[in-house]
């Protein structure tokens, strides 16, 4: 077990874990951030996508020791006490989910997209999310939710 300091959603947090522990388990079990979903845990379904220094990565494939000083963002950062990030509002307004398990990872991928491109085309959104699996078939609504969020984000700025 090593003492490791992580920077998650703007906070410095200390954990004692084996250095090769996947970030997924540290977020969920040591830090109590359950919003990052464990899916295949093989890097294929993208359910556990988080942002590390703004880049989307599957938390199941990243050893916690590799994170270092980089800033980790999880889906919890999108749900505010007073207001949500437009992406989460977009999901709720479009009712863009069925079981909802895949949404957290998609939200983080979409955040990375909107952070660098505030006016993505439908094709841009499809390309960004294409590796993310959804078994219930909520895809079309999820695409609309991201488009809605992009519009809301542009309206705000």
């Amino acid at each position, binding site marked *: 077990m090593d003492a490791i300091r992580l920077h998650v959603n703007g906070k410095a947090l200390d954990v004692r*874990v084996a250095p090769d522990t996947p970030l997924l388990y540290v977020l969920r079990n040591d830090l109590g951030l359950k*919003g990052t979903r464990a899916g295949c845990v093989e890097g294929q379904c993208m359910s556990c996508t988080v942002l590390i220094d703004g880049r989307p990565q599957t938390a199941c494939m990243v050893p916690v020791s590799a994170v270092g000083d980089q800033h980790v963002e999880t*889906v919890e950062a999108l749900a505010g006490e007073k207001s949500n990030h437009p992406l989460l509002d977009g999901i709720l307004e479009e009712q863009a989910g069925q079981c*909802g*398990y895949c949404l957290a990872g998609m939200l983080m991928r979409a955040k990375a997209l909107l952070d660098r491109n505030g006016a993505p085309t439908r094709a841009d959104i499809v390309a960004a999310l294409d*590796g993310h699996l959804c078994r219930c*078939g909520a895809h*079309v609504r999820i695409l609309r939710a991201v488009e809605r969020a992009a519009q809301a984000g542009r309206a705000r700025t």
Partner: protein
Amino acid sequence: MSTIASSPSLTDNPRCCDWLDLSRPGRVVLKSGKVEIGQGITTALVQIAADELDVAPGIVTLISGHTALGPLEAGTSSSLSIETGGRAVRLAASAVRAILLAEAAKLLQAPIESLSVDAGRIAVEGRETDLTYWSLAPAVDLTAPVMDHARPKAPAERRLVGTSMPRIDLATKAAGPGFIHDVELPGLLHGRTLDPPAAGRRLEAFDEEAFKRAFPTVQIVRDGSFVGVIAEREDLAVRAIAQAARLATWSQGFAVPALMREAIAADAAEPETVIEKGDVSAAEGRLISTEIERPYIAHASVAPSCAIATWNGDALEIYSHSQAVHDMRAPLAKALGIEARNVVVIHVPGAGTYGHSGQDDVAYEAALLARAVPGRPVRLLWSRAADFSLAPLGPGAIVRAEAKVNSGGRITAFSIQSQSQAHVSRPGRGGTLNLVAAERLATPLQKGKPLDVPVERGGGADRNAVPLYAFPSIHVSKRILLGLPYRTSALRALGGYANIFAIETLMDDIAAEIGADPVAFRLRHLEDARAAAVISKAAEMAGWPGPRAQGEGLGIGFCQYKNRSAYCAVIVRVVCDERVRVTHAWSAVDAGEAINPDGIKNHIEGSIVQSASWTLKEQVAFDGDAVATRDWEAYPILHFSEVPEIEVDLLVRPELPGLGVGETAMGPTAAAIGNAVNRALGIRVRTLPITRDAILAAG
């Protein structure tokens, strides 16, 4: 009151208090045995109860799928939750309202007709009183039978039902702890189990001593060929099971004919007649036939199956995302050698489920592990590979259908035979055990012979094999194969997926043969006005028949699910270049009363996408007795870039009972794709999935 139809859910749970509790001031506690599997049922149930009681939905707390606290209803399956569970909630809420208003009328010495309710507060002639549901509740007897008091609102009086209320659970599921995987309990331990290469394999050697040396703090549980580990940390359990896998040697598998066609032909099963009407052999007309083949299909839920088990003495508490929380208790108890009344199951949602996946198996295995640590809860999460290879599959099938068409362009006779393994082998069904790990204990518990579903309950292999079209003579039969080794059970639409593909592609073939338009040809054979209406509506939405162009085309498919649930017509547009792309889908649905119109649309959209995924891409591959497709690379599903634009229209009939919509689009979508490919390329593909290879082989 005798004219009000009851619900089967009330048979075992007849009292008002089985469904509702008003003991918390300002709150309505609603109890249901139906559970959330991603379909939005919990939102619909809250809507129904709040509407009948005239309270805000926000004050309704739902207890769903709790076997100690809630009604013991049949499982959440077969698209019945609105039809039976929703009806029971409506009747119970209306009965509670009537009982409370009768008490208020007595206290106020006012005629009951002069009373109204707003947010649980009683008014007389529109004037507020001090009386509320909660002040009245202690004086009334909610053990009264629901059916003695039920008086549901007339359709025009409903205010919440029929509106698209947002899902009550979506925000937590998008960004919070919304799933069984997220449940925290004091002292929770983490379990993992060792995956055999196939369900029936035996552990020939396992170096337990080496394992214990490597992982001294990890508890190992072994019973015959069942091996599991329990650890304080999840990452430790994951590392430990990986090491255990390296120390295990499994028995060899056995060969099975690689071609399903051969395996099915070689099986000793006899055909059984399901329905016979008229004499198909005596009918006049030209014979046109088809034979279609569907592969085994995986549930492929985005998250593997999960459960939490805690033992306290002989009492077992299970957190589960099973669709059959009540029904699993007896088989679980039998397999564990305890009394069923000592098993409490509490439902917590997992990722979406679409039938009988590994959800019950994992609960049993969690109980096997937790027995080693009395008083401590153990969460067991299956591996991705286990979910693909050990959970039941939707069975592969061959369906033969033939029809005779006379010189007037009408079908005079229709025959169909469905051949597959059984479609339902849920634990407990027909006395079977069917828990996959029970077969690899030191003293194995045999699963028993699987039973298919009788046609009175919607049928299994023969689901939707009986055509809704008005054919003068029909013969429907099925052949349930018992010699194949694969583990099969209920997957969305059961046999209805392949049977509707067979019937609806044959309808197009016959229409083409006689030069008829496929939509007109279907309408010619329908006496059911609701069926005709959804087909006509879908045709209008899609601009049927659309422009003819090489490599592009529209195709249609239709069914009424189980010939008794929702009516659904689907039209798709395909573009065929290096592969088949479904670019657009239009669907018209008649589900009678729509509790939550957007919820229905969402569900239909999702089933169109899932069916398109099955139809274009999915196929479980085997290596002898073992499933070879064990991860997402080997078993791809439809991606964002392959999903069509979808438009759904509901033909709402508020005066008619709400009908289940969860499965109705599966068969029609498959048939629509097959028919569209045929119109685009002039090639009839009869082997699913419709891949480039399948098209080349058929063309």
